[in-house]
């Protein structure tokens, strides 16, 4: 490995970038590998920030993808706490804040995304937070304790996980959702109603169909949320969980094809053969559904890290995966697989009242996606069925006396 060699430069030291660096070495890549990130710490897992870590069930060390010593041992140069401000593709150079430049033979863009903020009065008050980074999570955790009141803006998975963790820490929690139902953009009933009731039974209050007009403060710190109908909800802290914005500016400014995210092919290649993009920042093909889409998950970050690392070292491309994700709330294990594109019907297996059931989305007799609640067999078998696109019997799928093994057989 020569110091003058350009090798692979990875911009973004999150789950995707960190995994790509490690995989390049695991796959035997001998060239120089440089991993650059804006955050001051090496790659870590974000999912626990709203789950086990927030509840105090996992320590900071356990979040790390690899121990710090791994990078030196593996010959991966870590450049942390720096922002990459420019990309000159014709010269194959990235420019860092402060003016330093770094040449690359192959570039992997893994800048991820940032939390969307609300452009409303009071958004700058202290105590109004997002949850994306470990630093965000530290700030949030410090404000969750008995007697404190957290207002969660946005009834999505991040918001619901934070609500559950907040209750576990003894804080009061109110979830404020713009749509008529929580999870409106990603799920349907009976899951939405089930989760609403499950949270409500554990002390979470809901305001649905509510527009947030402003955050109001005292002495620079947030003290309440004002709704569109004039009502004021008092709180000590606000978590805004209303989606993300992809960090594709560097790619766009360099002329790479972007569609609200960097456009890549099934090998994570961009429109420039020397540039790959992986993880949350991408707009990628989903062959199973025959379309381009955005996936925001660890599974996606890992799949694309494998695709890029394999393409760079000349290994066969990894098998296509059925996209999946999970969420932990209270004692609920939620697992999701596939995407509900073109689905025309829903089959519910199991009784939501028992907190063990699954919702299957079908197109004809082909399974397209599923949501499983404390139902690992339904998740595992369903994920395989989504991938195989084998026709299944709806009646048998709905009948819990027929095992998932038999349904899938």
């Amino acid at each position, binding site marked *: 490995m020569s110091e003058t060699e350009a090798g692979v430069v990875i911009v973004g030291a999150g789950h995707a970038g960190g995994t790509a660096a490690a995989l390049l070495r695991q796959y035997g890549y001998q060239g120089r590998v440089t991993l650059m990130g804006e955050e001051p710490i090496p790659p870590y*897992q974000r999912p*626990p920030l709203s*789950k086990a870590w927030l509840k105090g069930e996992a320590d900071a060390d356990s979040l790390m993808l*690899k121990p710090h010593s*791994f990078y030196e041992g593996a010959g991966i140069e870590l450049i942390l706490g720096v922002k990459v401000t420019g990309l000159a593709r014709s010269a194959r150079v990235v420019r860092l804040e402060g003016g330093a430049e770094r040449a690359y033979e192959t570039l992997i863009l893994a800048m991820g995304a940032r939390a969307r903020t609300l452009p409303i009065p009071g958004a700058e008050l202290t105590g109004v937070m997002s949850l994306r980074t470990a630093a965000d999570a530290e700030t949030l955790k410090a404000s969750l304790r008995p007697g404190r009141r957290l207002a969660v803006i946005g009834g999505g998975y991040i918001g619901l996980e934070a609500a559950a963790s907040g209750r576990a820490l003894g804080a009061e929690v109110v979830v404020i959702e713009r749509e008529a139902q929580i999870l409106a953009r990603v799920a349907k009933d009976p899951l939405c109603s089930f989760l609403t009731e499950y949270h409500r039974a554990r002390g979470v209050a809901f305001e649905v169909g509510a527009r947030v007009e402003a955050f109001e403060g005292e002495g620079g710190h947030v003290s309440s949320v004002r709704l569109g109908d004039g009502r004021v909800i008092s709180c000590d802290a606000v978590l805004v969980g209303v989606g993300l914005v992809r960090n594709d500016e560097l790619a766009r400014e360099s002329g790479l094809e972007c569609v609200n995210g960097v456009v890549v092919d099934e090998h994570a290649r961009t429109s420039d053969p020397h540039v790959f993009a992986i993880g949350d920042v991408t707009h990628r093909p989903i062959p199973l559904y025959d379309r381009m889409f955005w996936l925001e998950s*660890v599974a996606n970050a890992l799949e694309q890290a494998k695709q890029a690392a394999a393409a760079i070292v000349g290994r066969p491309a990894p098998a296509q995966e059925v996209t999946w994700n*999970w969420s932990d709330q209270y004692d609920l294990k939620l697992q999701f697989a596939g995407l509900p594109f073109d689905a025309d019907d829903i089959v519910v297996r199991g009784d939501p009242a028992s907190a063990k059931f699954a919702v299957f989305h079908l197109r004809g007799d082909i399974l397209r996606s599923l949501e499983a609640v404390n139902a690992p067999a339904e998740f*595992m078998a369903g994920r395989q069925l989504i991938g195989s696109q084998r026709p299944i019997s709806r009646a048998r799928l709905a009948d819990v006396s027929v095992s998932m093994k038999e349904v899938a057989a």
Partner: protein
Amino acid sequence: MARITYIEHDGTEHVVEVKNGLSVMEGAVKNNIPGIDADCGGACACATCHVYVGEAWRDKTGTPSAMEESMLDFAENVEPNSRLSCQIKVSDELEGLIVTMPESQH
């Protein structure tokens, strides 16, 4: 602390010291040992950290929970000594543990 031997499907052995309290999965991932993907980071949500536990350690590694059993049921090439390595906590008791990896985690 326990010394654990991870054997890849092709027979390649990796011997590492793993701290008490970590899982057998974490011991592999943090040492960049191939063959254990652990996509979900240990949440028992994905079944990509499947291993076969050496006969001598089957009692010491305990019995899988109902959740783990259900996940394993649908993993590939499952054997009676199959476990999800994220669900096995390392302790002094596991000194010398040998785990073998399946051909694939998918």
